[in-house]
């Protein structure tokens, strides 16, 4: 509406002055965000594409920086360790999706009903989500102690001593699974909140109608709750996938990508290339690839949401 107003010549003078005043006020209000985003998001983002095509080192050297075209990308794609890291995050995603989202969905279903001390319960389930990953690593690093840490004691007790203690973080075939466990525990709270919001968004009339038609609780769940949650499912799965592909902190603190590169991830690989080997151009190439992966997942979400007609 206001767009036409500003371009209308017939307006009396005070109105026009007020329009100008409003224009500058709005510019002033939006400028801080625009400036900060331009400096700290858009500039480094564009720079990363440029840097990825140079041989720039982390610390400036006397030799001039050369443009090398797509050489860095070629090197990344021919490095077996990069493919290992990509495969590892894919494995991680495949495990963490059902565990984390399943946990979030189940706890949301539990909490979405009349309960005494609703807020306390919700807060308790949400508590791990506000726990810093560093703290989570301190806790789970202790739980994972080999051979006589708490988790091994529990496993030994439950199996009556038939299962040998597991070297959770030191055994290449277990390390990634251990990372999955602690990651799912730390992060399910947010997805739980999103599911709770989704459940609240389903109109109560639908349940009433189903009840009148004599649908059982199970049928109501399948034919009312699940379809109503479709957009929520898509959203939760996508953000969890994106989060999973950016796996870094847990691995950096607990395993440093080991043992035998079984927990090496794309971001950890990138940070190592950039800051340990100081190959900034090469690391930027990895960061561009990471962006493309995240972009593809986000586009997939959009497509899925459109398919579901929401």
């Amino acid at each position, binding site marked *: 509406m206001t767009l036409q*107003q500003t371009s209308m010549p017939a307006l009396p003078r005070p109105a026009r002055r*007020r329009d100008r005043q*409003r224009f500058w006020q*709005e510019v002033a*209000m*939006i400028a801080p*965000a625009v400036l*900060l*985003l331009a400096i*700290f*998001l*858009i500039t*480094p*983002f564009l720079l*990363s594409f440029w*840097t990825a095509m140079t041989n720039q080192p982390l610390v400036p050297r006397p030799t001039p920086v050369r443009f090398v075209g797509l050489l860095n990308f070629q090197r990344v794609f021919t490095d077996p360790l990069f493919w290992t890291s990509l495969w590892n995050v894919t494995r991680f995603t495949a495990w963490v999706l059902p565990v984390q989202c399943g946990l979030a969905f189940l*706890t949301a279903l*539990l909490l*979405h*009903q009349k309960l005494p001390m*609703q*807020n306390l*319960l*919700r*807060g*308790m389930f949400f*508590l*791990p989500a*506000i*726990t*810093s990953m*560093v703290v989570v690593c*301190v*806790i*789970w*690093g*202790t*739980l994972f102690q080999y051979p*006589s840490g708490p988790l*091994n*004691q529990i496993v030994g007790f439950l199996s009556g001593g038939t299962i040998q203690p597991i070297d959770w973080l030191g055994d290449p075939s277990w390390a990634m699974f251990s990372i999955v466990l602690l990651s799912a525990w730390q992060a399910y709270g947010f997805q739980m*909140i*999103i599911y709770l*919001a989704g459940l*609240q968004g389903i109109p109560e009339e639908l*349940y009433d109608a189903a009840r009148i038609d004599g649908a059982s*609780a199970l049928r109501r769940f399948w034919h*009312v709750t699940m379809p109503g949650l479709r957009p*929520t499912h898509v*959203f939760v799965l996508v953000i969890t996938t*994106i989060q999973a592909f*950016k796996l*870094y*902190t847990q691995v*950096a603190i607990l395993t440093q990508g080991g043992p035998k590169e079984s927990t090496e991830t794309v971001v950890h690989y*990138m940070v190592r290339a950039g800051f340990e080997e100081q190959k900034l151009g090469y*690391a*930027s190439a990895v*960061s561009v690839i*990471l962006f493309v992966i995240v972009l593809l997942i986000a586009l997939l979400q959009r497509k899925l949401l459109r398919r579901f007609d929401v």
Partner: protein
Amino acid sequence: MSDLVLSQPAPLAIPRGNSKTGLRIVQTVCIFMIALVMISPLFMLLIASLKDDRFRILADMGSFRAFWVSDPTLSNYREIANFSGELAYGRYLFNSLVILVVTVVSGLIINSMAGFVLAWGSLRGKAILLALVVALYVIPQESIIMPLVVMMSRAGLTDTFAVQILPWVASPLYVFLFYQFFAQLPKELYEAAEMDGASAFRIYRSIFIPLSLPALATVSILMGIESWNQYLWPTLVTQTDYARPIAVAIATFFGQDSIYWDRAMAASVLMMIPVLILYLAFQRWFVSSFVGSAVKG
């Protein structure tokens, strides 16, 4: 809003019948038990931090004693509560708090102002800016940090508070959340105020902000947690104690000398307290405002 949640019957509720109350009690107890299991690692952390002997902490871990301490002591906390020296956790905690408060307060102001203009302003490029904000949201922090570290060190900002605050104050996600929240408020609010001759900033400050407690609470919690838990970025841009946040301090300490469980655990408990307070302060509005914002994004 929590009342609203309470007033909604459950989709999975037990069929109505005579045994309803009995079932409900059993059900509630079960949910409490599950909740206790989920947070038992945190409880264990708290208990362990109150034990003096680091070897006993490990030995106790495998039994029920992990959840019990007969002679609680604050000695671990006393050892790390320094503002200088090797275990300057007081200082790290303070650093993190400064970064958190400045980031969240300035972030609330800057992102909400931008969201307001995108929702109600009359700027001509509005639609393009909004599309740009949505597009920028896709860029992950991890894929810009390489050039950003170089930019920051060239600007001489390494090892400062500013380098840990400035890049994360404005965020496409929060601008968008505010935009979405403001846009769904009734048009009459804006028009009536405009008729009365109120300026854009006046309308924003005196009418829209007082109405947006849920959005402010949600963004505070999200930004607060995000800022508090930053790890990768501060490891890259801090080298000395001066501005080192507590997350980085715990991680280095924990990695170097994993024998000092006791101190790492006390520091971890300290690290949990501020975000816990933040969550408790704002949780009333948290779930409700997520309804509108998250899923449609």
